[in-house]
């Protein structure tokens, strides 16, 4: 009798405790788990969004393997990621090193560098679209950049930056870096400030110059933070989408396609939901692979 009452009390207690998690659990199952499984299921179907579905096995994936527009788009986002990894992160690291000392206006710099990241991609894209405007009116350049190039004596540099396939991707990548370097800067600066100043002191006593101190103290101590920044940069840059949409607004064109714009147009312009899901599965798999490899790398670094 007594044990029964006790057992009932335990069950009631467990249920009560579970009720705390219930809202999160329900939302998570409906809006995350179900669409996730459904995405994999749909990737094996031929489906136009409405009407009957046809199971076609791996047909979508086979088509995807030979879809050169898709692999081009993958190369484009790889290119943007490469620029973000090198140019953007080098800039962020240089700024963090410059700020990691007693310096006037330090707070000002820290506040200002994080303003572009708080703006939305739509706002950033449209501002830069306006600055990079290639048009002429009454012999005057409308866009600020071309105007400045013209009046400062570089008329041969005036260019349709976003319209020319040669420069469009690089321009987008640079604007993306402009928007994104503040994240890396804040995280790297925080990492630098956790390094024990006595290590620098010891290196100096041992006769190490600035460069030796940098390669033998700063870099090894910062490696975990650098890896976190790198993985966030890769994931963020591979998925850049809204920025491209708002910068290249005269319809999406092939030379600025990235995987997410491919998925978007498979879904909304050609209504091929199954194919869009197959693209999403492949792309998601690649991203998971990248983060997994980087995670393994960072674990190894932490052990060493």
């Amino acid at each position: 009798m007594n044990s029964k009452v006790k057992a009932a009390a335990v069950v009631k207690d467990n249920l009560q405790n579970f009720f705390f998690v219930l809202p999160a659990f329900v939302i998570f199952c409906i809006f995350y788990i179900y669409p996730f499984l459904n995405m994999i299921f749909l990737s094996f179907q031929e489906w136009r969004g409405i009407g009957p579905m046809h199971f076609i096995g791996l047909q979508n994936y086979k088509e995807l393997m030979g879809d050169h527009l898709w692999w081009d788009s993958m190369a484009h986002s790889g290119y943007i990621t490469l620029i973000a990894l090198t140019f953007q992160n080098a800039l962020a690291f240089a700024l963090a090193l410059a700020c990691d000392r007693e310096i006037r206006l330090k707070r000002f710099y820290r506040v200002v560098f994080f303003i572009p990241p708080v703006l939305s991609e739509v706002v950033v894209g449209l501002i830069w679209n306006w600055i990079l405007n290639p048009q002429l009116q009454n012999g005057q350049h409308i866009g600020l950049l071309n105007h400045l190039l013209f009046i400062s004596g570089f008329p041969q540099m005036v260019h349709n930056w976003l319209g020319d396939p040669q420069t469009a991707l690089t321009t987008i990548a640079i604007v993306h870096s402009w928007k994104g370097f503040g994240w890396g800067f804040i995280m790297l600066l925080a990492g630098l400030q956790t390094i024990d100043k006595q290590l620098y002191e010891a290196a100096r006593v041992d006769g190490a110059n600035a460069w030796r101190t940098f390669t033998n103290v700063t870099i090894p101590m910062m490696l975990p933070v650098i890896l976190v920044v790198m993985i966030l940069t890769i994931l963020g840059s591979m998925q850049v989408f809204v920025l491209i949409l708002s910068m290249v607004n005269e319809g999406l064109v092939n030379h600025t396609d990235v995987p997410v714009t491919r998925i978007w147009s498979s879904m909304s312009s050609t209504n091929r939901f199954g194919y869009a899901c197959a693209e999403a599965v492949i792309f998601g798999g690649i991203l998971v692979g990248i983060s997994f490899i980087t995670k393994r790398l960072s674990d190894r670094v932490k052990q060493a």
Partner: protein
Amino acid sequence: MKANKYVFWGMIKSTCIHVFLMTIALTCLFPIFWMVRCAFMSNETVFVDKAFIPHHLNFGNFAAAWTKGNFAVYFLNSVIYTVCVVTGIVLISSLAAFSFSRLKFPGRDIIFYMFVAAMMIPLPGFFVALFVLMNKLHLVNTRFGYILCMINVGLSMSILLLKTFFDKMPRDLEDAARIDGCGKIGVWWHVALPLARPAIAVIVIFNSLNVWNEYILATLLLGDSQLMPLQRGIMVFQGANSTDYPLLMAGLTMAAVPIILIYLFMQKHIVKGLSSGAVVG
């Protein structure tokens, strides 16, 4: 003499550093300044007058965008979505994190790791399946549907952050509250939530930024212009008035300024949140 040389080189060095930092800072600020500047011009002068401070200021664009451009509706919608989503995330995630950290039930750890794993897996093309689901549930073109989706987006990270915070929190106060007759809900509301204020500040800021700036789901789920948030509205507006740059810049300014102001007021918390994220890894 030698000391002088050191001082001299030190000054050169610090000047170089300041020039470098200042250049980048100006590069950050100038496009934003240019946006605000162009918002004060008219369609006739914007193509001609290239002075930094325009010769004729025109204040009409903001009013025009607010009424003609439908920005009043977009702005209000953005405020509604941000407030509802962030409130929802704070309540739901703190309840769950409190239970994960303090209460026991079978399967607790499995469910927790599920949330963590969800955060690790990036889902770029997820919106296709989400749209199919929302269509099935008849939640397309409803405020409620969009709010639920956005709550889901922010949930994992918030739960993880709050659980780590609760784990480190001393239990004495909770025990005291329990002795005073507080139930579990009472402990959560009267003790855990107030103590977790620093963590909640971080959650509020990052999720507000995220909801205010969100575009993809808003485009997918909200086709009715009466329901659109700002980011979506700006793109619609831009499509309709693609040559009226001063008006567009006024709209962009109205979308950007609130978030910049919130950031300036709360930037200490942002730095703290990012720094702890970087160090924890």
